[in-house]
């Protein structure tokens, strides 16, 4: 039961964190030019965004769940299951970020999810 809970924290923490950071980055707006000064300024602005500050503890919780799971189960069990985060991430992008996830993108996400699971299990 605790394993299921930690897998939930692992998957939802990492995708939730990335979704929050993605939202924060979009709220900041893209840098106009790809110059070091402009990029550093942009990164600083994202880092003082509330969404970024919400994303970091979520990702940290996910990381600690991963460490605990590694101490209980083999890598070949944990990583293939964590590949589900690609599907959960696409769902989050569709319903929370209101992105347009069409059939081709869904097919790609599912293939990547299966591929990552196989690479990790292999």
């Amino acid at each position, binding site marked *: 039961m605790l394993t299921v809970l930690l897998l939930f924290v692992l998957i939802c923490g990492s995708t939730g964190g*990335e*979704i929050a*950071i*993605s939202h924060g*980055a*979009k*709220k*900041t*707006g*893209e*840098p*106009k030019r790809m110059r070091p000064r402009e*990029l550093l300024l*942009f*990164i600083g*602005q*994202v880092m*003082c*965004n509330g969404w970024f500050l919400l994303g970091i503890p979520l990702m940290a919780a996910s990381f600690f769940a991963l460490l605990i799971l590694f101490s209980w189960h083999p890598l070949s069990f944990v990583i293939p299951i964590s590949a589900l985060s*690609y599907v959960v*991430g*696409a769902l*989050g*992008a*569709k319903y929370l*970020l*209101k*992105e*347009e*996830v*069409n059939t*081709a*993108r869904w*097919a*790609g*996400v*599912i*293939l*990547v*999810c*299966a*591929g*990552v*699971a*196989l*690479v*990790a*299990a*292999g």
Partner: protein
Amino acid sequence: MASEKRLRIKTLIMVLAMVVCAVTGDLLLKRGMSELGAVHFTASALAQALLHMATSATIWLGILFLVGFMATQMTVMSWADYSYVMPAGAFGYALQTFLAVVVLHEVVSTKRWIGVFLICIGVVLVGQTKPRSTECAVREKAVASC
């Protein structure tokens, strides 16, 4: 049409930079930690490991690449969809496998090669879609509120 092509090229370059930074960072951290050997959970062993981490150029270089990964990921997500960047970034698993064979001369199982093949098809499929399906914020407004 031209701006869409420009957006696609810009996104693919940034995703590639993101993947290269992540893979290089992981490889350098692995190399740096391998120099130390297995870390045991005793106070003295952990202190020794921390000292090694703080003084190892390989580990610092690895951290620098991972910071680069974080920076490129945040930058690309400021204009591209999360559902585009996230699966495209999985190309790193394929790159890691190629590097393991070419650089480290590791033997890779058939199962893993099938996984790499699926990832590559998945990334190509996602790459065919529009990188951005939502509107981006205007930067000047955000600068004022930050």
